[in-house]
């Protein structure tokens, strides 16, 4: 090279140096070659590799979506748990409890000698601390959460929520192992509420250093954090040996964060995951290749694709204050006109089941046929409409409906089928597609005519569906349904002490709402989970609670 290259050499040299500096600054870790041969790190070798999409939060106070919740379930045990198989509520951190004061007071007796992952005792104060943390806007956390509503019926809720006090008067701790909850109203279903993963206990460390706790929560569950949550990459947990219950059989779990289910499933097929989800188009392939789980909720070798029905429902929301939709007959006709089986068969290979009620069958209070208009009967729909809205020569009526929905996530295909079903009975249907973020607020305010929504049970009780969706002043009542009779019946039903009577009363309310058809249930969601052949058994219940503590590797 010629001698007058020095200028360029200088520039190249300094560029290279700055690039190296950038890399060093970004913390370049292992070499590619090394990481291939090194494989999994020591902590996670032989770990159960579990796919989740990016969680919002794993700290119990704000577990508002199901991905982070799947992690939290393994780190924390709430007072109770719902056993879907037996269909009843069982004790977890509490070995027993009893209601008193006509269902307004609950005394929980904690399991003695239980410890947090850091060795602290799990006492009644730990529950009070945790629950105050869920409701208070500032106590023991860096950022506010959105789950306060779970404790809305506990005495003192409003003051804590408003930030006036950090002493939750409805929660008292007479001794180490007794936790007393006083409600402002009778709510015999409260033990179901107490099963929610956001209500697990937290040690003092949570309040002392909320920032560290947020990324590495310390719980009382069968597994403990192994390092911090690494955003967008992974969360490692390992077995907690001092667990008060039966210790887990698997030693460690790596929750592997992937951006989408397609990617995760390819990784699964490559043998990198022990549990993943299956994208809808691959359903048939997955069934033939991996075999369907016999009960729908347990994966065993050869029966690895879990397709059990979840406690959630997909429905068409109808704004009852709308000029056209205020006529219940129109809403009934819409509900009758939707061919639910065709949607389930064509779009979900029959894995999802048509919904004939707002309550899924796994929820106590479900009764077959309770929603008399929630099935496909085109003739009946036409008959209902003919009386008031006669059809012209082309079969068109003077009825137009606008369906508002977010097209992504397969909703467009579902809504297109609904649209053609409605057109078939004489409606003029237009669609208004927007992004979810842009449409959600309009749903809530009742600014849309009809749209799609889903509801997942917070707790497996009828009240959680009926009160949330149909009580006139509920924030989740998007159809703006307002029926004083239903409101009254709901209040009465939820405070009925006797279990059987309460459930029967809920069924009765459900029937009343079903006759009015403020929404049209379309289908029940089903699992799309899959386990690898290395997993001897793994149960994923209808409430999307992964029972990794009882899972076994082959």
């Amino acid at each position: 090279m010629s001698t007058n290259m020095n200028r360029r050499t200088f520039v190249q040299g300094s560029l290279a140096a700055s690039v190296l500096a950038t890399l060093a600054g970004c913390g370049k870790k292992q070499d590619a070659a090394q990481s291939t041969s090194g494989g999994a790190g020591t902590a996670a070798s032989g770990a159960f590799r579990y796919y989740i999409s990016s969680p919002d939060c794993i700290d119990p106070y704000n577990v508002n979506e199901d991905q982070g919740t799947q992690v939290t379930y393994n780190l924390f045990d709430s007072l109770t748990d719902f056993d879907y198989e037996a269909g009843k509520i069982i004790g977890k951190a509490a070995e027993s409890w009893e209601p008193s004061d006509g269902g307004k007071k609950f005394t929980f007796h904690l399991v003695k000698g239980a410890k947090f992952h850091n060795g602290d005792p799990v006492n009644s104060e730990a529950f009070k601390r945790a629950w105050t943390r869920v409701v208070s806007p500032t106590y023991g956390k860096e950022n506010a959460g959105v789950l306060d509503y779970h404790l809305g019926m506990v005495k003192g809720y409003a003051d804590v929520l408003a930030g006036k006090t950090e002493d939750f008067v409805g929660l008292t701790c007479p001794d180490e192992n007794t936790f007393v909850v006083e409600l402002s109203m009778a709510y015999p279903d409260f033990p179901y509420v107490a099963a929610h993963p956001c209500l697990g206990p937290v040690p003092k460390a949570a309040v002392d250093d909320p920032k560290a706790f947020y990324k590495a929560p310390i719980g009382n569950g069968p597994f403990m954090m192994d390092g911090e949550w690494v955003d967008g990459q992974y969360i490692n947990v390992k077995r907690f040996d001092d667990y008060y219950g039966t210790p887990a059989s698997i030693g460690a779990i790596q929750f592997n964060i992937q951006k989408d289910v397609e990617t995760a499933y390819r990784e699964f097929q490559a043998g990198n995951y022990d549990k993943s989800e299956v994208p809808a188009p691959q359903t048939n392939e997955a069934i033939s290749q991996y075999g369907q789980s016999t009960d729908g909720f347990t994966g065993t070798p050869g029966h690895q694709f879990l397709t059990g029905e979840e406690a959630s429902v997909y429905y068409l929301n109808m704004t009852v204050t709308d000029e056209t939709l205020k006529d219940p007959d129109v809403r009934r006709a819409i509900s009758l006109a939707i061919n639910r089986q065709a949607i389930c068969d064509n779009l979900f290979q029959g894995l999802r089941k048509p919904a004939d009620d707002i309550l899924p069958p796994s929820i106590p209070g479900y009764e077959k046929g309770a929603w008399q208009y929630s099935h496909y009967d085109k003739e009946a729909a036409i008959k209902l409409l003919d009386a008031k809205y006669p059809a012209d020569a082309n079969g068109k009526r003077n009825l137009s409906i606008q369906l508002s929905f977010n097209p992504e996530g397969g909703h467009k295909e579902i809504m297109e089928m609904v649209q053609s079903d409605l057109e078939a009975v004489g409606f003029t249907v237009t669609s208004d597609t927007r992004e979810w973020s842009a449409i959600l607020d309009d749903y809530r305010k009742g600014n849309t005519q009809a749209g799609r929504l889903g509801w997942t049970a917070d707790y497996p009780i009828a009240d959680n569906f009926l009160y949330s969706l149909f009580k006139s002043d509920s924030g989740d009542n998007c159809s703006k349904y307002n029926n004083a009779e239903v409101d009254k019946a709901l209040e009465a039903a939820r405070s009925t002490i006797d279990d059987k009577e309460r459930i029967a009363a809920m069924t009765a309310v459900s029937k009343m709402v079903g006759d009015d058809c403020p929404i049209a249930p379309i289908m029940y969601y089903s699992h799309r989970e899959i386990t690898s052949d290395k997993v001897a058994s793994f149960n994923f219940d209808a409430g999307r609670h992964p029972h990794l503590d009882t899972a076994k590797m082959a």
Partner: protein
Amino acid sequence: MAKYIVRRVLQFIPVFLGVTIIMFLLQNVVPGDPIKLIAGDKAMSPEAELAIKADHGLVVTDENGKPVLDEKTGEPIPTPLIQQYFNYLNGLVHGDLGTSYKRNLPVTEILLQKYPYTVRLALVGIVIEAIIGIGAGIISAIKRYSFWDTLVTLSTSILVAMPAFWLGMLLQLFFGVLCKNWTNGAFYLPISFNANGEFQDWVYYILPAFTLASVSTAYTSRIMRSQLLEVMNADYIRTARAKGLSRKAVIWRHALKNALIPVVTYIGIDFGVMLSGAILTETVFNWPGVGNEIYLAISQRDWPIVMGGVTIIVIVVMIINLLVDISYAFLDPRIRLGASSNKN
């Protein structure tokens, strides 16, 4: 020189303010309330909504961080936009880009975790661009009107015409699906992380880096070709030939050096663009870089991440452009910077 650099750095300020103000206004125009989205499908209590807004500085708060209510209406007072913008600038000066709406993690932390992947992808991309682009440009210039020249011209036209994301999908289809057995799944993305979240293999870089570099590789070879041809007609080249140097020596020692100046500039600026995170390429390949993060954040209306990501991009692009301009002065002594340009 120092004066020139100072002047350029001062020019950063209006550019930076311009870009961030536009971004800031845009996020307030886009429909959809990001705070309402946080709770997912379920409604949250008004108190919770207010507390979250207070956390993120969207409502006026007192010194304890509690929301201040309007005396007459009892409603919370939204922070004026101009105040929000100043808060953002103030945070930025202190190295604080705010907290993610969805995940409540500091934005700086989120972005720093993603940035190494974008940097590594950009490095591989720039190497591909330099080697293939310059190489192809030289070949087509030296062997003008030959088969090779036509091939380069044709293929660069195709690459320029093809959007990067489309090329990325075609490559995925070809290597990942059609040639799956032949490549033994090596190119087949998604990216695998091992237990520590590292990439398992360098081959995963090839397809995304090639996609990222495709259009600019084509431009690089075009620029290289035309520059080299232009230089070859210059007087000093004729002189060099006349004094008896071989064609090869003339090209390598005299022509190439000068022809490279605009090419290096182009590649340098392009490196800045790549470092700013290729949103399309990263999304198509599910690359865990800043571009993908910004894309996700936009779809979730997680404005602090979008704002923070754009801030970093603006700064990186400005710095790279400055470096390129400085290097220009070294590469071509005829370019006079700063004070000397006043003489003209």
